[in-house]
Protein backbone atom coordinates (compact mmCIF):
# COMPACT_ATOMS: atom_id res chain seq x y z
CA UNK A 1 0.00 0.00 0.00
CA UNK A 2 1.15 3.49 -0.82
CA UNK A 3 1.87 5.55 2.22
CA UNK A 4 2.07 9.31 2.21
CA UNK A 5 3.15 10.67 5.55
CA UNK A 6 2.81 14.28 6.62
CA UNK A 7 5.05 15.21 9.51
CA UNK A 8 2.46 16.97 11.68
CA UNK A 9 -1.28 16.50 12.13
CA UNK A 10 -1.72 19.83 13.91
CA UNK A 11 0.52 22.88 13.87
CA UNK A 12 0.14 26.29 15.46
CA UNK A 13 2.39 29.14 14.35
CA UNK A 14 2.51 32.89 14.65
CA UNK A 15 2.08 35.56 11.99
CA UNK A 16 5.33 36.28 10.19
CA UNK A 17 6.99 32.97 11.05
CA UNK A 18 8.56 30.78 8.37
CA UNK A 19 6.69 27.49 8.37
CA UNK A 20 7.79 24.16 6.93
CA UNK A 21 5.36 21.34 6.14
CA UNK A 22 6.98 18.04 5.28
CA UNK A 23 5.67 15.15 3.22
CA UNK A 24 7.25 11.77 2.52
CA UNK A 25 6.00 9.00 0.22
CA UNK A 26 7.28 5.45 0.12
CA UNK A 27 6.24 4.29 -3.36
CA UNK A 28 8.87 5.89 -5.56
CA UNK A 29 6.25 8.11 -7.20
CA UNK A 30 7.49 10.75 -9.62
CA UNK A 31 4.68 13.24 -8.98
CA UNK A 32 3.99 15.01 -5.73
CA UNK A 33 1.43 17.68 -4.93
CA UNK A 34 0.47 20.16 -2.24
CA UNK A 35 -3.17 21.19 -1.83
CA UNK A 36 -5.03 23.27 0.68
CA UNK A 37 -8.54 22.31 1.68
CA UNK A 38 -11.04 24.92 2.83
CA UNK A 39 -14.78 24.44 3.46
CA UNK A 40 -16.81 25.21 0.36
CA UNK A 41 -13.70 25.59 -1.79
CA UNK A 42 -12.66 21.97 -2.14
CA UNK A 43 -9.04 21.12 -2.85
CA UNK A 44 -6.93 23.82 -4.44
CA UNK A 45 -3.53 23.04 -5.90
CA UNK A 46 -0.66 25.10 -4.50
CA UNK A 47 2.38 23.51 -6.17
CA UNK A 48 3.32 20.24 -7.76
CA UNK A 49 6.52 18.50 -8.75
CA UNK A 50 7.07 15.86 -11.41
CA UNK A 51 10.72 15.19 -10.63
CA UNK A 52 13.47 15.97 -8.16
CA UNK A 53 14.27 19.68 -8.13
CA UNK A 54 11.38 20.36 -10.52
CA UNK A 55 8.33 22.37 -9.49
CA UNK A 56 5.31 23.90 -11.12
CA UNK A 57 2.92 26.50 -9.74
CA UNK A 58 -0.62 25.44 -9.13
CA UNK A 59 -3.65 27.66 -8.83
CA UNK A 60 -2.78 29.45 -5.57
CA UNK A 61 1.03 29.63 -5.21
CA UNK A 62 1.20 33.14 -3.72
CA UNK A 63 2.84 33.15 -0.31
CA UNK A 64 4.18 29.61 -0.68
CA UNK A 65 7.29 27.92 -2.01
CA UNK A 66 8.31 24.27 -2.26
CA UNK A 67 11.41 22.14 -2.19
CA UNK A 68 12.07 18.70 -3.59
CA UNK A 69 15.65 17.65 -2.99
CA UNK A 70 14.89 13.92 -2.86
CA UNK A 71 12.31 11.93 -4.80
CA UNK A 72 10.43 10.78 -1.72
CA UNK A 73 10.22 14.15 0.04
CA UNK A 74 8.28 17.28 -0.88
CA UNK A 75 8.25 20.28 1.42
CA UNK A 76 5.86 23.21 1.49
CA UNK A 77 7.21 26.47 2.86
CA UNK A 78 5.21 29.44 4.05
CA UNK A 79 7.76 32.23 3.75
CA UNK A 80 6.01 34.61 6.16
CA UNK A 81 2.88 33.04 7.59
CA UNK A 82 -0.33 35.06 7.58
CA UNK A 83 -3.70 34.38 9.19
CA UNK A 84 -5.32 33.73 5.80
CA UNK A 85 -3.05 30.71 5.45
CA UNK A 86 -4.85 28.97 8.29
CA UNK A 87 -6.12 25.82 6.59
CA UNK A 88 -5.86 22.07 6.13
CA UNK A 89 -2.89 21.15 3.95
CA UNK A 90 -2.84 17.90 2.02
CA UNK A 91 0.10 16.27 0.31
CA UNK A 92 -0.37 13.70 -2.47
CA UNK A 93 1.78 11.56 -4.75
CA UNK A 94 1.15 9.65 -7.94
CA UNK A 95 2.75 7.85 -10.84
CA UNK A 96 3.42 10.12 -13.83
CA UNK A 97 0.49 8.98 -16.00
CA UNK A 98 -2.44 11.33 -15.59
CA UNK A 99 -5.04 8.63 -15.08
CA UNK A 100 -3.19 7.23 -12.10
CA UNK A 101 -4.79 7.95 -8.72
CA UNK A 102 -3.37 10.52 -6.38
CA UNK A 103 -2.54 9.08 -2.96
CA UNK A 104 -3.10 11.55 -0.16
CA UNK A 105 -1.65 11.95 3.29
CA UNK A 106 -3.99 12.58 6.22
CA UNK A 107 -3.32 16.30 6.23
CA UNK A 108 -1.81 18.96 8.46
CA UNK A 109 -4.21 21.37 10.11
CA UNK A 110 -2.27 24.61 10.34
CA UNK A 111 -3.39 27.52 12.48
CA UNK A 112 -1.69 30.89 12.15
CA UNK A 113 -2.30 33.16 15.12
Amino acid at each position, binding site marked *: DVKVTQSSRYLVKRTGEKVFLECVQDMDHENMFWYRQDPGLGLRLIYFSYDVKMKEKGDIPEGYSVSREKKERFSLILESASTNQTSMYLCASSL*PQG*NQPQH*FGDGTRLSIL
Partner: protein
Amino acid sequence: QQQVKQSPQSLIVQKGGISIINCAYENTAFDYFPWYQQFPGKGPALLIAIRPDVSEKKEGRFTISFNKSAKQFSLHIMDSQPGDSATYFCAGLRVNFNKFYFGSGTKLNVKP
Protein backbone atom coordinates in the same frame (compact mmCIF):
# COMPACT_ATOMS: atom_id res chain seq x y z
CA GLN B 1 -12.97 30.44 -12.14
CA GLN B 2 -13.94 27.07 -10.81
CA GLN B 3 -13.58 24.53 -13.59
CA VAL B 4 -15.63 21.84 -11.87
CA LYS B 5 -18.81 22.82 -10.02
CA GLN B 6 -20.26 20.38 -7.51
CA SER B 7 -23.63 20.21 -5.76
CA PRO B 8 -25.11 19.89 -3.24
CA GLN B 9 -22.69 21.11 -0.57
CA SER B 10 -24.28 18.74 1.94
CA LEU B 11 -26.67 15.83 1.74
CA ILE B 12 -28.62 13.83 4.30
CA VAL B 13 -29.96 10.43 3.23
CA GLN B 14 -31.68 7.68 5.15
CA LYS B 15 -30.06 4.27 5.32
CA GLY B 16 -31.02 2.28 2.25
CA GLY B 17 -31.72 5.36 0.16
CA ILE B 18 -29.97 6.63 -2.95
CA SER B 19 -27.40 9.41 -2.64
CA ILE B 20 -26.86 11.56 -5.73
CA ILE B 21 -24.07 14.10 -6.14
CA ASN B 22 -23.79 16.20 -9.28
CA CYS B 23 -20.88 17.84 -11.03
CA ALA B 24 -20.57 20.06 -14.08
CA TYR B 25 -17.37 20.96 -15.89
CA GLU B 26 -16.32 23.74 -18.22
CA ASN B 27 -13.23 22.41 -19.96
CA THR B 28 -14.15 20.15 -22.86
CA ALA B 29 -10.52 19.01 -23.02
CA PHE B 30 -10.95 17.05 -19.78
CA ASP B 31 -10.60 13.36 -20.52
CA TYR B 32 -10.75 11.72 -17.10
CA PHE B 33 -13.23 12.22 -14.27
CA PRO B 34 -12.45 10.63 -10.88
CA TRP B 35 -14.40 10.72 -7.65
CA TYR B 36 -12.61 10.80 -4.31
CA GLN B 37 -13.99 9.88 -0.88
CA GLN B 38 -12.71 11.47 2.31
CA PHE B 39 -13.48 10.25 5.83
CA PRO B 40 -13.02 12.60 8.79
CA GLY B 41 -9.38 12.89 9.78
CA LYS B 42 -8.17 11.16 6.62
CA GLY B 43 -6.97 12.23 3.21
CA PRO B 44 -9.15 11.69 0.13
CA ALA B 45 -8.93 8.32 -1.61
CA LEU B 46 -9.93 7.34 -5.14
CA LEU B 47 -13.41 5.81 -5.20
CA ILE B 48 -14.30 5.41 -8.89
CA ALA B 49 -13.43 7.10 -12.18
CA ILE B 50 -14.77 7.38 -15.73
CA ARG B 51 -13.58 8.43 -19.18
CA PRO B 52 -15.88 10.56 -21.37
CA ASP B 53 -16.32 7.86 -24.02
CA VAL B 54 -18.39 5.85 -21.50
CA SER B 55 -21.86 6.91 -20.32
CA GLU B 56 -21.93 4.86 -17.13
CA LYS B 57 -19.56 2.98 -14.87
CA LYS B 58 -20.62 0.84 -11.93
CA GLU B 59 -18.54 -0.56 -9.10
CA GLY B 60 -20.62 -2.27 -6.45
CA ARG B 61 -23.09 0.24 -5.01
CA PHE B 62 -21.33 3.20 -6.67
CA THR B 63 -22.23 4.35 -10.18
CA ILE B 64 -20.99 7.27 -12.25
CA SER B 65 -23.35 8.59 -14.91
CA PHE B 66 -21.75 10.77 -17.58
CA ASN B 67 -23.47 13.14 -20.00
CA LYS B 68 -20.86 14.50 -22.40
CA SER B 69 -23.19 16.82 -24.32
CA ALA B 70 -24.36 18.49 -21.11
CA LYS B 71 -20.86 18.46 -19.61
CA GLN B 72 -22.24 16.88 -16.46
CA PHE B 73 -21.54 13.78 -14.45
CA SER B 74 -22.94 12.39 -11.24
CA LEU B 75 -22.23 9.86 -8.52
CA HIS B 76 -25.04 7.59 -7.38
CA ILE B 77 -24.68 5.59 -4.18
CA MET B 78 -27.30 2.86 -4.05
CA ASP B 79 -28.48 1.38 -0.75
CA SER B 80 -26.61 4.09 1.15
CA GLN B 81 -25.10 2.97 4.46
CA PRO B 82 -23.95 4.93 7.53
CA GLY B 83 -20.40 3.85 6.64
CA ASP B 84 -20.73 5.87 3.41
CA SER B 85 -20.89 9.07 5.47
CA ALA B 86 -17.95 11.08 4.17
CA THR B 87 -17.07 14.02 1.98
CA TYR B 88 -17.06 13.31 -1.74
CA PHE B 89 -15.09 15.25 -4.34
CA CYS B 90 -15.47 15.06 -8.08
CA ALA B 91 -12.63 16.10 -10.34
CA GLY B 92 -11.75 16.63 -13.98
CA LEU B 93 -8.38 16.54 -15.64
CA ARG B 94 -6.48 16.24 -18.86
CA VAL B 95 -4.53 13.01 -18.60
CA ASN B 96 -1.49 14.38 -20.42
CA PHE B 97 -1.19 17.26 -17.97
CA ASN B 98 -1.87 15.31 -14.75
CA LYS B 99 -3.40 18.37 -13.07
CA PHE B 100 -6.62 17.68 -11.20
CA TYR B 101 -9.40 20.26 -10.87
CA PHE B 102 -11.51 19.32 -7.88
CA GLY B 103 -15.09 20.27 -7.11
CA SER B 104 -15.94 21.97 -3.83
CA GLY B 105 -17.01 18.75 -2.11
CA THR B 106 -20.26 17.24 -0.80
CA LYS B 107 -20.61 16.17 2.80
CA LEU B 108 -22.84 13.11 2.91
CA ASN B 109 -24.54 12.01 6.12
CA VAL B 110 -26.37 8.69 5.98
CA LYS B 111 -28.73 8.37 8.93
CA PRO B 112 -29.35 4.90 10.41
